[in-house]
């Protein structure tokens, strides 16, 4: 290693990145049906105390999930094949104590419900089921892919000086091999 300090630094950086991915708090699962990729994910840890405070104040809170279908690359950044964004929003009526939860995909409300139970609201807010990822080209048989989901809550109680630092509130990935 002493003879290759640059290589050592690259390996260290890779390990750091792998560790960051391994510490993901978004549980992701994938389902392949009819040649299409569906993913389900939950991120209960994303609903932090700060998020709860935001909701309790009557502010609408949005959980923005960015779902990326990627294929690993050896010497370069992983190639992103498709990206879709889904958002779950909640608004508390502080008078009635009713949580109004709605889910949006591609600017369309795909689901909406209300509850007075906070646990129920958290479950609805931090989980999506069978979100379809549309790929522009068919997947390659027997190839390794993975789905990466990152969640971002807005608004946030904390504020970072730079959007690149701590912008996401959680992420996770699920690897799969596309077998036809």
């Amino acid at each position, binding site marked *: 290693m002493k003879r290759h300090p640059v290589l050592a630094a690259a390996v260290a950086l890779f390990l750091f990145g792998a560790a960051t991915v391994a510490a993901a708090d978004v549980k992701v699962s994938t389902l392949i049906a009819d040649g299409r990729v569906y993913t389900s994910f939950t991120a209960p840890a994303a609903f932090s105390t700060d998020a709860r405070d935001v909701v309790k104040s*009557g*502010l609408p809170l949005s959980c923005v999930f960015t779902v990326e279908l990627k294929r690993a690359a050896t010497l370069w950044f992983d190639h992103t094949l498709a990206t879709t964004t889904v958002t779950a929003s909640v608004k508390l009526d502080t008078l*009635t104590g009713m949580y109004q939860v709605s889910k949006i995909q591609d600017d369309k409300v795909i689901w909406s419900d209300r509850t007075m139970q906070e646990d129920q609201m958290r479950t609805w807010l931090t989980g999506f089921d069978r979100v379809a990822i549309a790929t522009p080209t068919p997947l390659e048989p027997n190839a390794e892919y993975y789905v990466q989901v990152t969640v971002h809550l807005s608004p946030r109680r904390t504020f970072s000086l730079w959007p690149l630092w701590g912008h996401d509130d959680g992420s996770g990935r699920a690897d799969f091999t596309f077998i036809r």
Partner: protein
Amino acid sequence: MTTDRAVPTSLSSAEPADPAGAPARRRRRALDNPRVVALAILALVAGLVALGRIANRTTEISPLLSDGVAYALYALDLAILAALLFVLVRNLMKLWFDREKPFGRFRAQLVAALLLLTVIPAGLVVITGSEVIRSSFDRWFSVPAEEVLDSAKNLAKAYYDQRQASATESAHRVAAALPVAALTTGNVGDLQGILGGELTVMRAAAVVGSVEVYQAVRTAAGTADVALLVQVGSATLPPNTVRAAADRLAARALGSGHDEPTSEDLDDGGGLVRVATPVRGADGVTLGAVVVSEYVPAVVRTEQRKAMVAFDKYQQVKVLRGPLQGVYLAIYLMIALLILISATWFGLFMARRIARPVQMLAAGARAIGAGRLDLRLEPESTDELGSLVESFNMMAAELRSSQEKLDQSRHQLERKNDEVDGRRRYIETILERVATGVLSLDADGALLTVNGAAERLLGLDQTAIGQRARDILSREDLRPLLPLADVLRRPEAAGVIQEITLARDDREIQLAAAATVLTGEGGRVEGVVLVLDDVTPLIRAQRVAAWRDVARRLAHEIKNPLTPIQLSAERLRRNFQTASPPARALVDECTGAIVTEVEALKTLVDEFAQFARMRGPRAVPADLNRLVEDTLRLYAGVLQQGRLHLEPQLTRDLPSVRMDLEQMRQVIINLVDNAVEALGGANAPERPDGRPPTIVVATSHDGAGGFVRLVIADNGPGVPPTDRDKLFLPYFSTKGRGSGLGLAIVRRIVTEHGGGIAVGEGRPGTVFTVELPAA
């Protein structure tokens, strides 16, 4: 007169250190333009004002809190901070590197002073303002305010909860009272009585509301749904209540199997608190639902809403205190940084604005000191500094104008000086070349100038200049000139003109002398000018002319009676041929003497006549050597038997001479004859020094003088110095016989050929030198 005018060159701030260049005027940078900077700041301030107005008009705070706005604000702050640091570091480094340049320290001190004056207050404003914002946020979330809002919220919530509990109680009461059969059969009559009793209870409790009973039904698709069986309501209930909301609530309660509360706003500002509760049969199957709605009056509902909104906003602000504070701090930091960068820029701008003209003026002064009077500085402003630069330009222009006038005056003076100098040299040349001797004396009688002719006439040299004239003229041979120098003692005489005879070098010099007193302003005596004309040749010529006239008269008066006298004497001799021998001998002797003397007189008169009527020369180019050889050949027979040597020394390749051959031959003969006679004739004895009597006839050429020289020298006894000047006068002879016209005729011939003749002393003997101009 023309003067060289250089094209004025300009100097701007681009070249203060190097004013010699012409250099072109540098374009002002945008950052140096106050208008550009003011416009930029104005645009930023306008952006901030617009952002503030948008935030004020927005009821929700989320737009302001969006990450994009916050990050944009911070990015802007960072950009401004980076610009500020760049400007500061750049200018400080520039000042550091320029500190050794002219005015570098002055500029650095000025910039430092202005930066301290601007940056420190601006920095204090930033720090203080940040603390003010923090403390303001702390005050916003003070405990009393929160308690008031919390109480208002609790009141509103308690009222709502009370209404909801009341509606829930009513719904439960109605649900419990409903007969199951009525729900399954849809017997509305039984239901209305129950509902009417409930309305009575509600009315008794001063509650306005309504009660709906729904029956569970199955749709054609097999899904569960509800159908309204009966509805009763208070008479005072607003008519615009929406039943669809009650339908959805009943369906929801039917689906969930438990109470479903909701709150609904009405158009009149009031609201409905609804509760749907499912109705179950004995087997627990849900048969329908009861919805009870209680009306909340508009006044109550409005206050309730206000309290909740205020509380919500407070909570929202409290929850988002961190980001809000960050945004406000970012905005304030941006404003502060704008102020700071403006102040910094203004300080640097002012430093440049002050230092640059001063630097430019200094460079201009150096350039003018180096002689660049055509320099013109470009003013960058119209304020006092601009006026100073304009004044500098005016001063430079005045200097240039004065310099041009001085140059013109100097040129004129130089030209006049050259003219005077030329005139002086011209006069000096004339004075040096003229035959008239000129001497000038100052007021003290000291010699100032002596020209060449005066030096020759008086035997002086340049060492005489500066000496007193009286001392110079006290020399024995110059003493007759003393009265001229004494004219300074009596300036009233104004001048003296005299004819003076000097005896110098054993000869007499006739001088026409004039002394003129020079007087300046006010009659002050400034000196004397002595003018000496050598009139010796003139007097000599006058004498010759007089003698020629005498000769002509003598020839005329004497020659006429000679023939009768000679004839008379011969007649007497013939008449006395018959007389006695003694008488005849006496007569013969007397008449013979008369005839002989008459013949001598005739010869004398002929010579006079020749001298008087001698014709002018008919000159032609001829070879002088050949003429000399031809002439000397005449003496070959005469001198052959004698001891006298005639020795020609002729220089070859002489230039030809324009001369009358006969007259020049006479010149040579006369001079050789005189030499022969001086030596004692052809048979002259040896000279006392033992050498044979010798006559040398030599020719030579003086190329520089442009004449041919003929020298005839003998080693005879020579001519006394006092007689040398008289030798060429008519009727002067050292021989005691003859007419004395020989050398006079020789001189006349030579003179008429444009030449000259001089006599000198040989060693021993006499030397005659004839100089004729070369052709």
